[in-house]
């Protein structure tokens, strides 16, 4: 059990979607990463994390998303973040230009569509 966060899967047919709430810092970022990875299924084209309810994130959390994105990419999967502009952590992520490191979208729907589009154009593995 990871402390101080809530992790809820959201129903979606094409991509794994997780809603992450609570606070992420140096104290739990590693555990949060493992918990998120546990929820990504082998055959999913990627993972969308809904951050609209996350109350706190700092550079430890930013590192977590970047590293998670790299790990998924090695498995030919994509990470996309849903960060509505009224999300508490929106400002923090825009300061570090998160969108240059990991795809960031205004809504879960946009993020799901982004991953779906990418996976369509993904070269199939022989």
């Amino acid at each position, binding site marked *: 059990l990871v402390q101080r966060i809530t992790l809820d899967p959201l129903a979606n047919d094409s991509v794994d979607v997780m809603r992450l709430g609570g606070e992420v810092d*140096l*104290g739990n970022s590693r555990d949060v990463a493992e918990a998120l990875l546990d929820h990504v299924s082998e055959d999913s084209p990627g993972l969308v994390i809904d951050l609209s309810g996350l109350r706190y994130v700092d*550079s430890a959390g930013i590192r977590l998303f970047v590293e998670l994105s790299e790990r998924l990419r090695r498995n030919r999967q994509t990470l996309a973040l849903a960060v509505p502009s009224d999300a508490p952590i929106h400002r923090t992520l825009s300061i*570090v230009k998160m969108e240059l490191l990991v795809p960031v979208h205004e809504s879960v729907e946009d993020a799901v569509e982004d991953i779906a589009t990418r996976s369509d154009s993904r070269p199939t593995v022989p």
Partner: protein
Amino acid sequence: MTEISAATSESDRHALEALYELTAAVARAVALEDVCREAVRVIRSAVGVDRAALLIVDEGGVMRFRAWEGLSDTYRARTEGHSPWATDETSPMPVVIEDISEDESLAELRDIVTEEGIAALTFIPIVGPGGLLGKFMLYSDSPRVFADDELMLASMIAASVAVAIGRREIEARLRASRDQLAAIFSAVADGITVLDRGGRFVLANDAAAKLCGFEDAKEMLSAPPDLVIERFQILDEDGEPLDLDALPARRVLAGEPYAERVVRYRRHGDDDDRWSHVKAAPVPGPDDEPEFAVNVFRDITNERREHERSQLAFTRISRLERLADAALRASTLDELLEELLVVVRSLLGSDRATMLLLGPGNELIARAAVGIDPDVAYGVRVPVGEGIAGTIAATRAPTIIDDLSKEEVVSAYLREHGGSLAGVPLLFQNRLLGVMHVSSDETSAFDAEDLEYLKLAAERAAIAIEQTRIFERERDIAAALQQSLLPEHFPPLPGVVLAASYLPASDGARVGGDWYDAFPLGDGRILVAIGDIVGHGIQAASAMGQVRNALRAYANEEPSPASIFTRINTLLSEAAGNLFCTAFCGVIDPWARTITYSDAGHPATLVLNPRGEASFLEGARSTPLGALRNARYDEQTETLEPGAIVVAYTDGLVESRREPIDARLDALADAASAAANLPPARITEFVESKLVDDGEREDDVAMIVVQLTASPDELRLRLPAEPDSLRVVRGALDGYTRRIGGSDEDVLDLKVACCEACSNVIEHAYGTGTGAIRLKAAATDGGVVISVTDAGRWREHHPRGASRRGHGLTLMRALVDDVEITTSETAGTEVRLFRRIGG
């Protein structure tokens, strides 16, 4: 009989058989989903309709399809949630629509229904004891009239389904409360077992299994009950074989409402006797006869061996005591010693009489004196072997000194007065307890006869002293038992100073149910709780452990006093035994300077402001925990002034047979006000000294005192350099920033910037052992200056990867108006942040 009626009765029989089958399925506790599916099948064939469906009200109060036959997805999606009855309808009746085209009540659904090909429909309510649970839908493709007996049959099937739904809810609730109990049982040190009428163990915790010599509870439960008992020789307290029917569990199974006793036992093949305090309470079954016995036992072997030793001494004393003078029996040791000295002084015609007792460090300390200013007498300390009293103690020889001026004298008052002295050692069974002496201004005032009388008085004093000590030791054992369950010291917590005290009831053997606890919530706030277990059943001390465990577990999940109390109330209401508990729970935020509290029938907690003025927290009051199953617990938040002191206590402090409660609460407020300038640990002592009568304390007394120490102007924190400290930093900054007028945005930005500075300290303290973060925040003109200091060097780059701290610095620079990093060899690294606030 015509063919037609035969066919009808044939179909009736099918319907009834189907209904029996359904009832049997419900009785077999088949999963609810299966019952629903079966019910739809049965109702369709029994009533003879084209299609049917079953809907159940969900948690949100909406009717949802759970099983259906012959309905399209579209139809279900469009009609789900519809109900002809109000949700709070207590006795809903079936609603029959024989022809939808001629019915106006369903006008808005007519098109949907018609499109599905349905012409007639009937709503059969499913009703449980608490109201509407769901409905059956019967559909016919052509207009149709439903006969009364068809509706009746449908209602009977609905009743079966209601039973299944109700049972599922009860089972879910039972499972939840059983899980909670199991978690708590496994956490207490007491052995707990549950026995059924046949004496079989149906539940045991690991502690019980270990005490019975098993590896764990599983192994114990799988062993035949006779085998468990046969492992031991069961004895009573005197070591005589004990009839097994006298064991508490068997007694409560035989009908006693509560039983406890000390059991002595010896494992076969083992020489050492062990003792266990066993308590049992019955759990009544449906027939009101005891169905189970809850058995709680505690290994008291060590306490018992101590008790046996003092008991032995006590027997000897009582024999001597009968010879002692009745006049010498006073209520306290001090009174007795003083009375004795008064008699001795008048009989021997001396001016002064003194009793010195042997204290720690082989020193004699004056304990009682007459004829001397107490301030002079009571401080006197004489090392054994030195001076007159010290020599009497060392040689154990009764002594007369005719002229004190010729001797080496330790006590100032003896030196001053001069004259003569007679002294004897106080001995009990050859053990030195102290020295008693009388002195006179005249020289040569005492003779051998006086010395004999003094020896007699010393003997009686020695007995009285020893008796008091044994009594005090027994009381200490009882208190230790309780205190072993209470935290003695609190870890230092930023922003507050905590102190607590516990005094057992003066009839020492009884252990009360008072408890307290305080712990950090991890985000800079502190939870403080105090309570008093009332009632019988599983005894107070063990119940106390359970309530405290539950408190900590629930606080970890949701640190709200109202929510914690609601859950403990449910737990206690559903637990076996009739126990309840008054309690106060407060969450103190030293940085926002607030207390959020709830009061479950507990005496109102007192708050002292910095001027020493007392007030009581009188809001958010409800009934004791466990007293009322559905009791409602609220919470209230009060602002505290800088330096405020919160004093929570149990009723033993304010209840008195002689005075009305209001007068006692006033006395408490007065005493606390007078002590307001003392540190918390001294406040408890002072208040106790004013309110608690040491001689006859009927109830135990617990107190917990919390003082806010955070400065009103600045925020200062010193925390271990570990990740867990980041939450404390954020919690403290949150409270502080809001107090100085910061907005939500100010709060969040400062939290991120500041945690970046702290994370750097932490990452860099990793592997180097312990380190500390020092944080200081102070409001300045139009903003706040924050300084984060450590003993190392700021690291822009992390050794493990590229510019890992790059984001940290970017964030800090963007979120505050000024960042300054200074590194010096001697003072370590300081990060200074400045941000304008409320601008």
